[in-house]
């Protein structure tokens, strides 16, 4: 049997986390919910680590984060205005990151886009344009740092959050190389 792709495993573990959270609120199935949630988290740790180990596949790396954010947004109460806005913004930010990732693989197009970015250091990352990909990663690391400060997070959740944050740094480093290639630096 062919090895199951990382992408399938990402959707699998996030689905299990989702089912776990749902069953935790279902009379008589709370135990199943807890088992699914913990199993999903454990599989997510493996999947996110593997995504980082294969950082040249940036699309899968940020897809992992995007799928996780989508799950968090799905569970967020729209009446929790601050959290809902933050998660919605994160999802939109990664939508932009996907577009940037496609553009950077087209050097003539990316060279044109580069001209629209100010060369002031505020708008640069290691002298490369601070474009939508970098902005998504930077914003998300800040968001995760804020979540880590909240009370009530268990160790498994904390470990996964730290890995997700570290993956943003890995993603940015890999993306910088793509930018340098696109701009022939």
């Amino acid at each position, binding site marked *: 049997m062919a090895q199951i792709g990382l992408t399938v495993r990402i*959707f699998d573990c996030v689905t299990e986390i989702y089912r776990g959270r749902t*069953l935790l609120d279902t009379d008589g199935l709370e135990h199943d919910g807890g088992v699914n949630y913990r199993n999903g988290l454990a599989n997510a740790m493996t999947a996110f680590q593997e995504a980082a180990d294969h950082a040249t596949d940036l699309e899968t790396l940020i897809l992992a984060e995007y799928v996780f954010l989508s799950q968090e947004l799905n569970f967020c109460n729209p009446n929790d205005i601050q959290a809902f806005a933050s998660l919605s913004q994160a999802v939109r930010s990664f939508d932009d990151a996907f577009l940037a990732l496609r553009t950077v693989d087209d050097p003539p197009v990316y060279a044109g886009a580069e001209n629209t970015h100010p060369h002031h250091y505020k708008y640069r990352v290691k002298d490369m344009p601070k474009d939508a990909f970098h902005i998504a990663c930077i914003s998300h690391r800040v968001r995760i740092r804020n979540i880590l400060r909240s009370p009530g997070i268990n160790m498994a959740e904390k470990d996964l959050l730290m890995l997700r944050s570290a993956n943003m740094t890995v993603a940015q480093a890999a993306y910088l190389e793509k930018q340098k290639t696109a701009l022939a630096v």
Partner: protein
Amino acid sequence: MEHRLMNDQEIAEIYRESHRLEAEGRKEEAMAKRREAPLPAFLAKVMKEKLGGQYVIQSGWNLAEAETKFGANWLNR
């Protein structure tokens, strides 16, 4: 694979069986078992938007929740 909606009890049973398979070291069978439960509609939508409709079909997931929410022809839109 049959795409049908399931209640929480059925979904819980599928996951219990998948964990039994994982405990026996049969990881790929365990994952295949979990794909018998419907993929949540919002995740199916993400899969379609980011990976394409063909990927969704070939993923082997039960798409009943997505079909119920978005309509039978949702992958072609």
